């Protein structure tokens, strides 16, 4: 039936009005406020503030580590999702529930426990140190923290798609003589790829903004293991508001671009449905 002009349910004006009011006060006005303040800075000044060598080093670390972490998550997340959907093994329910742990655990706690685990005398770090691998208080630490926080995204995006994958299609491929490997490469993988990329993008977006878990494990040495969000705080503590805002706007714009990309990716991923 066509769009309903009259709706007997009451409260549309009230709830929509309140939604728009609250959205404006809490989200839209603060974001707009930040942009308006940045517009007061001249373009040349903005460019200088946003591209200091220290800032460039911070972007490089933030994006580089986020990218590596998202790649790790794509690989292991895909394996986890596959195993959880397709196989039956002991402790599966427990593993499934644990996947959401990084969502639920406060980032400060994650950072604290990871830095302790991977420190030279920690449970895991003690095995890495003799190999010359400095896991905590180094850029590698940043990757570890970002891998942790981004982990649920790939698994939880892939899982429902894998579940809805019709087994009949694979069986059809088998009856047509395709080997298991062939079926996977030419039928399963192409179907899952858009979803996998969506999960990757979600993990990447989350990692770029992450702060809490990273600062515990990174070591935070300028130009080496200092992430962009941390640099914003340092600028703020130096009362360099313009510097902080310039960096914040760069991160904000990148977040919005990623948000739009993810929306497009989701549409692409669902193109085979119906």
């Amino acid at each position, binding site marked *: 039936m066509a769009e309903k002009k009259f709706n*007997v349910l009451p409260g549309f004006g009230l709830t929509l009005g309140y939604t728009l009011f609250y959205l404006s006060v809490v989200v839209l006005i603060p974001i707009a406020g930040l942009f308006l303040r940045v517009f007061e800075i001249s373009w040349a000044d903005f460019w200088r503030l946003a591209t200091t060598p220290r800032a460039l080093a911070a972007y490089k670390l933030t994006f580089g580590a986020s990218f590596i972490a998202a790649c790790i998550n794509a690989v292991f997340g895909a394996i986890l999702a596959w195993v959880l959907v397709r196989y039956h093994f002991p402790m599966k329910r427990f593993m499934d529930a644990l996947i959401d742990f990084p969502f639920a655990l406060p980032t400060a706690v994650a950072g604290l426990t990871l830095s302790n685990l991977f420190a030279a005398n920690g449970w895991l770090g003690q095995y890495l140190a003799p190999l010359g691998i400095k896991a905590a208080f180094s850029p590698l630490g940043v990757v570890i923290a970002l891998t942790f926080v981004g982990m649920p995204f790939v698994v939880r995006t892939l899982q429902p798609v894998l579940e809805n994958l019709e087994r009949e299609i694979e069986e059809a491929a088998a009856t047509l003589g395709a080997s298991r490997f062939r079926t996977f490469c030419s039928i399963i993988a192409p179907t899952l790829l858009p979803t996998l990329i969506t999960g990757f993008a979600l993990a990447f977006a989350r990692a770029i903004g992450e702060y809490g878990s990273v600062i515990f494990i990174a070591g935070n040495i300028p130009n080496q293991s200092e992430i962009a969000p941390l640099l914003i705080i340092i600028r703020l503590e130096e009362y360099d508001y313009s510097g902080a805002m310039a960096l914040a706007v760069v991160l904000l714009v990148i977040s919005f671009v990623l948000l739009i990309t993810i929306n497009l990716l989701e549409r692409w991923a669902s193109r085979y449905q119906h």
Partner: protein
Amino acid sequence: MSIELRNVSKKFGGVTAVNNVNFSVKEGELVALLGPSGGGKTTVLRMISGLEMPSEGDIFIRGERVNDISVQKRNIGFVFQSYALFKNMTVFKNIAFGLKIKKWAKNDIHDRVHELLHLLGLEGLDKRYPHQLSGGQRQRVAIARALASKPSVLLLDEPFGAVDAKIRQELRDWLVTLHNDLNVTTLFVTHDQEEAMEVSNRIVIFSRGNLEQIGSPREVYEEPNNEFVARFVGVLNVLELTVQGGLARFGELEFPALDRPDGSKMRIGFRPFAVQISSDTSAYRCRAVLRHTFFLGVMLRLELELPSGLVIRSRMTKEEYSALVLKDGQEVSFIIKRYRILRGEGEPLSPEIHSGDTAFSTHGAGI
């Protein structure tokens, strides 16, 4: 008049869902709103209830114009197609909901709910939740809930749509009995012509937002207003004839064409019962091959293939069939005893035309 609609139209955006509809329902009637899906019948029901507002026209309930009265105040009982039982409430609380809203005394609510539980055969189920009921029980709880505060009209949207085919028949009979007991004005929406014919006193037929016909089941079947009604209610065989020399022909079939010009087309429609068959191939002028015989209990459906390849349907009783001694694949002769001239979907039909007993006398058929 219990319900009256005057010039009621409903538009959704640019689409006209209901187009200038007029009809009325008498106190205590059981009326079916019949039509194909998307015909506007559910919209009419929702407008009567107040869940939808008419774009134009007036709706009266018991003589009072209710356009400006909200659904809460109209005192109607509405049974949703999905039943819309409150999942978080027991059967008792579902039925009592409207009474509590209307601030009935606790004892009165208790008595009324138990009266309804008894009436609808739901005794002992009052503490169950909707998910603990069968489909038929859910439907009866929905009806009980709608009836609880003694509404002036009971409105049901596809009441048998969501139950198994095999219990539908029983529920139909039961609705008729319930209506006879309570005598509350009842309107129900259905797309099933058989259901409408069986259950209702009168049928209101809709198609594409237009009211096509109102009448008793017998009237809409025997005196359809137009081709749509004739096709929708019951089975209609349709033949397209070519006029030549004052006769409209289809193979060996001939019908008087009055003063239609040569070469023009004429369409006729006839019910399966109007086809009379004989196993003697020379009894009637037209011949056909009996392709299939379907046994439908006391009735039989026969499919006849004409020499042109067209298949027409016939019906007869078991007694008639046994008297004829027929078997599939056999050649038979037949005649069309009664037919009407069709003039297009929405156009009125000609009155029923009776052919004579043999094809040879079609020339003299009275009009």
